[in-house]
């Protein structure tokens, strides 16, 4: 029996060549079947081309994609080329777009609801979404999706789109249509079993913790911790100079403490003059923050995630989607761990495909510096 899904990656600066090879392999794997769903990732430069061409080639398939910092897959990884997951059997999917994500996505919540009611079943269904990044809109997109999915129990899983270092814009795509200010989503019902969502945090809390006491939520700017100028407070607390604070916080994300859980938030920038700390996720006033540090035993972290995902061997994923934050990817590259990471992911999850973007969305949370996984049984 032919496999129900197929992952392929072609790293090539030549977009045409990359597309041809990917399509050739998909077709070979399809054995005459038409993919129900294609999830693809590519660099900003090639994104427009791949989006259009894939839709031209597979007009009957639901094709959803996102620009990515690097493409990750069980068939290799890299910053260029095209990476795709094609699913031929065992799923039902309904897709949609939420435009105007920066201003008023909520007006499209009813479109999400409508899409949800077109899916076969709410159970074993996930809402996979990709949202254009750099617009500080992920939280309101999540509000919209969750509002639209209210009462269905369908969780949201997705990523802010990514980009290469020299780019200034990110893209998402649905069925050949490209957007630079939108969220594209596809509700995927797994007819073959359940869908498991996992969050992996490779950072651990330090003893340094504090509370946000002045914040501009909408602009994701923190002005004060514990009633004091944010940057100054951090410098004093950490015993470092102001000119070092940016670098320090790049390696030490904020951990937003919610009950027993800690959610990572990246610091995008620090203005040493005003003391303002610019974050990549929304932080609310009175939020308890703990400073995080990378765990030294990263291989153990991967193993623990695997154990959790596999549930002592009781769970066998057919394919896995991951969203791995750009900063996390950079960490792996800088520490020469990226090869090992991709090998471990391939060993553990076999058929996997992933994006590296500017943030991760899981249920009602927009996260940073995190890896999230959706494993389809």
């Amino acid at each position, binding site marked *: 029996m032919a496999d129900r899904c197929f992952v392929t990656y072609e790293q090539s600066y030549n977009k045409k060549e990359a597309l041809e090879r990917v399509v050739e392999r998909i077709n070979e794997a399809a054995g005459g079947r038409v993919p129900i769903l294609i999830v693809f990732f590519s660099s900003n430069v090639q994104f427009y081309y791949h989006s259009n061409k894939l839709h031209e080639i597979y007009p009957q398939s639901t094709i959803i994609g996102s620009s990515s910092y690097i493409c990750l897959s069980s068939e290799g990884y890299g910053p260029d080329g095209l990476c795709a997951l094609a699913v031929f059997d065992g799923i039902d999917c309904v897709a949609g777009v939420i435009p105007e994500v920066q*201003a008023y996505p909520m007006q499209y919540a009813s479109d999400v609801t409508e899409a949800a009611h077109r899916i076969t079943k709410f159970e074993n269904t996930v809402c996979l979404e990709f949202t254009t990044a750099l617009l500080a809109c992920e939280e309101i997109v999540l509000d*919209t999706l969750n509002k639209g999915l209210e009462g269905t129990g369908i969780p949201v899983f997705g990523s802010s789109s990514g980009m290469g270092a020299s780019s200034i814009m990110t893209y998402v795509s649905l069925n050949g249509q490209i957007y630079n200010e939108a969220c594209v989503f596809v509700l995927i019902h797994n007819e073959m079993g359940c869908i498991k969502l996992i969050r992996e945090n490779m950072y651990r809390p330090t003893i340094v913790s504090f509370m946000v006491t002045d914040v501009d939520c909408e602009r994701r*700017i923190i002005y004060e911790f514990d009633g004091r100028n944010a940057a100054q407070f951090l410098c004093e607390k950490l015993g470092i100079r102001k000119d070092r604070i940016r670098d320090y916080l790049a390696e030490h994300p904020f951990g937003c403490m*919610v009950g027993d859980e800690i959610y990572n938030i990246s610091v995008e920038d620090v203005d040493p003059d005003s003391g303002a700390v610019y974050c990549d996720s929304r932080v*609310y*006033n009175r939020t*308890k923050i703990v400073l995080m540090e990378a765990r030294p035993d990263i291989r153990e972290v991967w193993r623990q995630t695997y154990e959790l995902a596999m549930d002592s061997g009781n769970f066998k994923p057919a394919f896995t989607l991951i969203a791995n934050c750009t900063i996390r990817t950079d960490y792996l590259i800088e520490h020469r761990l990226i090869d090992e990471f991709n090998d471990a992911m391939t060993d553990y999850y076999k058929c996997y495909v992933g994006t590296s973007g500017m943030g991760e969305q899981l249920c009602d949370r927009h996260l940073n510096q995190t890896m999230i996984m959706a494993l389809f049984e």
Partner: protein
Amino acid sequence: MKEYNNGLIRTNDKCIGCNKCVSTCPVVGANVSLVVNGHPTMAVSEDKCIHCGKCIRTCNKGAREFIDDTEEFFKAIYSDMKVSLIVDPAFYLIYGSEAGNILGYLREQGVYRIYDGGYGAEISAYLHATYIRNRKQDQNTATILNYCPAVIKYVEDHVPDMLDQIIPIQSPVMCTAIYVRKYLKDNSALAYLGPCPSKKDEMIDTGNVISYNVCIRNLMTKLKDVTFEECNHEDDLKAIGLGALSTLRGSFGYMIDRLIPKEMLSVKNEHIDRGFFDFIKASSSNGGYGASYYDLIACDVSCLMSAGVDIPFDKYSDLNRKIYDLRGKNLDSLNGYGTCDENYARVEKFFTEIDPDDFARSYQSTYRQMSQVPEDTCEAIFNSMYKDTETKRHVDCGSCGYNTCREMVEAIAYGYNRMENCIHYMNDELLMRYYTDDLTKIANVEGFKANVTRLYEQNPGKEYVIGVVSLNQLNLINDLYGFSLGDAYIKKAAEIAVRFTKDIGTAGRLAGGEFLICFENTPENMDAAYKATTYSFSDINVSFPLSFRAGLYLDRFRDETMEAMINYASLARDKIEEDGVSTILFYDNELQEKLAAEAMVTSQMYAAITKMEFVPYYQPQYSHKEQRIVGAEILCRWIKRDGSVISPGLFIPIFEKNGFIKTLDKYMWEQAFISAMNYQKDAFHRIPVSVNISRISLNEDDFTDTIRTLFKRYPIDPEYLHFEITESAYSSRQDIVSRKVNELREMGFKVAVDDFGSGYSSLNILKDMPIDILKLDMGFFRGRNSENGQIIIRNVVSMVKELSLDIISEGVETAEQAEFLRHVGCDIIQGYLYARPMPATEYEKLIRKEEEDMTSSRYENEMKEKGVFY
């Protein structure tokens, strides 16, 4: 901090941070609670403010003000710029006949032309009516007349769903401006004189057809010293109908009402507040609110109550009456009392030359969706405000300015407000602070007492233990690692205390590293308490294990006050020496008696000095060889006035603990100097005395100075006074002790090591310390191996002799001991065998007798030698 107060409406220094502006403001987040330089204030967020100016009217402190273009307007006319003025009908209504004089003055100052804004109101009303007459009616759709710029801004900024509900016709003022610009060909810069600060937004949104927004309040303030009587004026354009009254609430709708069939219009006059549009939307989707068109204004009563005018309420009611009279008169003119079709036809004919497209307006959404505050964030804020029950979360008193507690919590999450603005939180916080320890966040003493009281009430049949627990090594941690780690240690200890008492009692912090615990007296709990030995604090980077000492009081009968029980436990704790081991001591009767005696001693010691109850006693030292007294040790006895004696075994340890020993030492030294001086004068008594120096006195910096002072005061031959220093004093700070001993010796005094052999003696003392005499304690004789003791004494004596030191055996009680000592060569002996310590008089008597005996013995011997026999 984000920038605030940089828009049209601003907060000044008069703000006291009350919540009035919040409660009156239609927009959540426009007022932001801040603490600036320690003072609470409510700043205005320009991102959110719709410039309605309601807060200016509401604030009775005058803490809100607005910005307009009055100064720029005057600058323009004084710089010979051609400026024409559109005057809002409100100005004519407020100033009546004086209006002409004021406007005449402005014309004299250089205003080019003056137009009555009521004229534009008539155009706007006509075009609104046209729009309504031509529009397909939908009774379920609310429609908003474009009249109030703050309402328009509110919709654009906050209710984008309703943007297409606003009739796309320019407002009365803008219609006037467009009319004079296009149809009267007036190309001068336009200024608008009116009541409304928010008109500026409309001016900007419509391409700055009008350049200056001059508010009536600011204009009249500027012209307060001007006399207008001489100035006369005629408007260059005058309203001819109801336009003159359009400023009144509902009048604009009323004007339209005259022009369209009744079934097409059902105008509802409202002022906006928070949630109003939700109400309209909800009512629209539920079949309507009974109104098809809304004549909405931001101000509560009318534009005459806007922030840009300053009319007191009482004057307003007079004004209102006048205005309604005027309405009747004006109805006779253009609009008239005809049917709506007749009226409309008449107005249409009048405005036949105007092109409606010139007066069309579009609206732009500036809305940005707010993210919903996550439930867990609200939950956390609710909890930190002590709102931990549904009842507490629905107080909804509104004193914070928000309608509900939930709104307030969301405002806090967004950073618009502070918890301190909730009066209920502050009340609870005060209570909590009263009951909670600031550092550890567990109960403080008061909180502990309250918790114990509650525990007792809930468990009347149970028996509880009250404890005071002190952390060992806290000072060491503070010294080694700093106070912040010391605080971390205390916090961790608090966690342990809370964990230990969880489900079995309660815990609190007393002070410093001291904690209070209360737990049920059960074998299991006591077992757990005794099993608690040391704790690892490696997670806060303290490398060694830490321990505690706990005093416990078992409250069997509940007949003691809480204070007393804590005191008992504290006293028991105080009896434990700090070391590296966790120790628990119960407060019991024996301890109670001991403590009572201690209390008595402590309370009477100062008085005892003045009453001279401390009396020097002399214990003689005998020489075997010479068969006579060769010295005496002065010992302190406390003999009270009533003759009762307090044992030195009781008071000396207490004095050592409370430091009074230093005072007593000085007193006894002086007594010793006096004795030595007296005996030195007396030929019979030229025998040295020795006096003790306690370890504590020896450690005092001024110790040798004190001796030196006494020596000066009592210039004795130092040969007659020896000092005894206990062996244990040598065990620490040897260099310092050695220096001080040397200083004594340099003064000529002999120094003895006292009690050698009573503790864990070190031969190093003999090697290193500068001493003259060794006082050998009979401790070597005690115990099971007295043979071994004898061997040691023999060798010590031999060693001491080789070191050329004098040796005195003290504590000799038996003849066997004395014989042994004599045999091994220790000649001088002090002990009960020979004499107990005795008062000075007895001692002197004893010496005198001994002298006499010796004299007669010498005489007998001489007689014997001379052959004389008795």
